[in-house]
């Protein structure tokens, strides 16, 4: 579970990227990104999130977002992120879905 806070721009996106990379190094392959604290994201942040998604999928992992604001959800849909990453309304739903598939986070 990765919980973000604040503007997902170059700076914010890099922090998420570094966190996810470190978790990948530790062997993590299933990711839930909780964006409740991030109501705004720019295209630099989106490009970083795309890289994270690609990295996880290359490792045959699974990645999902939860608690997206309507604006961010729409942005992700338009930019194509939700074609490759799942979206859940809440952390509980995401955790439940991952647990049902037998994936530790």
């Amino acid at each position, binding site marked *: 579970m990765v919980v973000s806070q*604040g*503007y997902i*721009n*170059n*700076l*914010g996106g890099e922090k998420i990227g570094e966190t996810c990379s470190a978790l990948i190094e530790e062997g993590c392959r299933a990711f839930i990104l909780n964006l409740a604290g991030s*109501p*705004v*994201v*720019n*295209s*630099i942040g989106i*490009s*970083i999130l795309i890289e994270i998604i690609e990295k996880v999928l*290359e490792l045959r992992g699974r990645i999902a977002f939860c608690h997206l604001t309507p*604006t961010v959800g*729409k*942005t992700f849909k*338009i*930019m*194509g992120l939700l074609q490759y990453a799942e979206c859940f309304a809440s952390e509980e739903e995401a955790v439940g879905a991952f647990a049902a598939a037998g994936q530790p986070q």
Partner: protein
Amino acid sequence: MNTADESFTLRMELILGAIREMEMLAADSGDFRSRAKLLLRALLGTATVSRGMVFRYLAASGVLQPHVSSNCTLPKSAPRMPDELVSAWLQTGAPVLFGDLTNPAGAWAVRESDLFPCGDSRVLFPMIAQAHFVGIVVLGPKFMNTQFTREDMNTISLLLRPLTMAYFSNELLRTSRQTLFQLRRKVLELETLGEVGRSIISLREAEHLQFEILMRASSILDASHGALLLRAAADAPLEISAVFGFEQEGDEPVNFKDFLKSVQQGVTERSQVLAGGIHRDERILAVPIFAEERNLGLLCVANKETRTGHIPFSTEDENLLVSFASLVAVALENAQLHLAALEKERIEKEIDVAARIQRGLLPAELPSIPGYLSQAFTQPCRTIGGDFYDCIELGSGRFAFVIADVAGKSIPAALLVSTLHAALHTLRDELVNPSLVSTRLNEVICQSASEAKYITMVLLVLDANNHRLQALNAGHNPPFILGPGDSIQPIPAGGIPFGLFHGMHYEIFETDFHPGMSIVAYTDGVVETRTPSGEEFGTDRLIRFFGQADGCSSVLPSRILRHLSEFRQSSAQEDDITFLRIQRLLIENN
């Protein structure tokens, strides 16, 4: 088959096998860098070359980017490849030896030799696919430092194809992804503008909407920070209404705070932007917010981000921010209109309440007086009027009739009507003495704080037992007495309107009230009713009307209103209309 033929056959099998494997690897998915490294190693192994590296050509910048290497270190910097060299290589497609200074590529490689640390015997192979220059492969010495033969060059050229196609496909994929990303960004820009527009129409709370517009504009433009400054009034200084991005630690925009401070202070160097111009420098973009030529404020963004740093805002960014600024203007205008509408609704509700209260002050019906018929009616020209009438029973067969006209309209007039009503009922016991009560009423009205200032009033005290009438006219249109017979007698003013001066005394008119006599009192709205050409109804017409009217008619009020309406034709009613009539019947009713 002899040994040489066997070796050749084995070698060809090996090469073909390697090509097949490389093609499968090239078509595989997964991390491209890893695959590229494997492809390079396959090529090096099959060609018995000890070391090599691949440089990817970036067409947009003309730079050769070091990508993967085997058995040597990739250079840190990326050389720029001259365009003429690219063109020449596209034409020949031939590999070049480092030492061959007769070849431009060979000579160039010597000049950039620090970037190719692969030993002495080096060969540069161009990677060309479908007339596109994809990059170069630099090969170090052959195994055991033997010379590259023509067969080696041909073999390497064959092995290079799957490597080249892999890089070409990757570049195509990268470019199409970038193009798709940019297209999607455009869609997002349009969708954002549309969504913000819909939010404005839904009349969301103005401050929240301002912040949301700022936030959306900043993120769409990839700005790290933004600010919205507004003016409280036309020539007022700019004040910060919303800021974005300052809560994030680090990456503070250079000079943005100084810029914001300087526009708030209205310093001379900011006069152009303060006058409604656009400001664009290396890091800051600020556009004015205009609504119908009124300069409402400034929308600013700072620090346009890329993955590697910051770039200046473009003309496209400027156009997009101007679009957001116009949405801010619409939001502000809508908010003001909405507030004005709410205020208007509130005032209308208060006026309705006041009108209800005012109507409640009027008597529901006039008392039934044996031997007399009394009628009264009022029609205000607006929701609240300044006219008033009342009838107060004084006991012993005496009744006080009042008709009054407050100067002014609407709430102030209504308040003064209430004051008069309260005073009349408080001084009820003194109404039998019109001379005394008139002085008291004048004092009350003088002391009232109303803006309306004065009241004209007629007070008629009827002694129905003794058939006597006392009349007070405080500056009002003179009521007139009709009868007996055809006589018409106006009751002149006994003093000035109430409320103008303290300490006034009033003269009282008294008369016997004979059978068949009637007294008519009215407000100026009746006689001043005008035709479209400006002709007034006048007192004479009113007298004639009442002279001809059936005194016992219960529809008299509606008849006179209809008569006035027909006289006025298409003109609107300009003043309140009130009248009062008391008639002594020829035959008494009990």
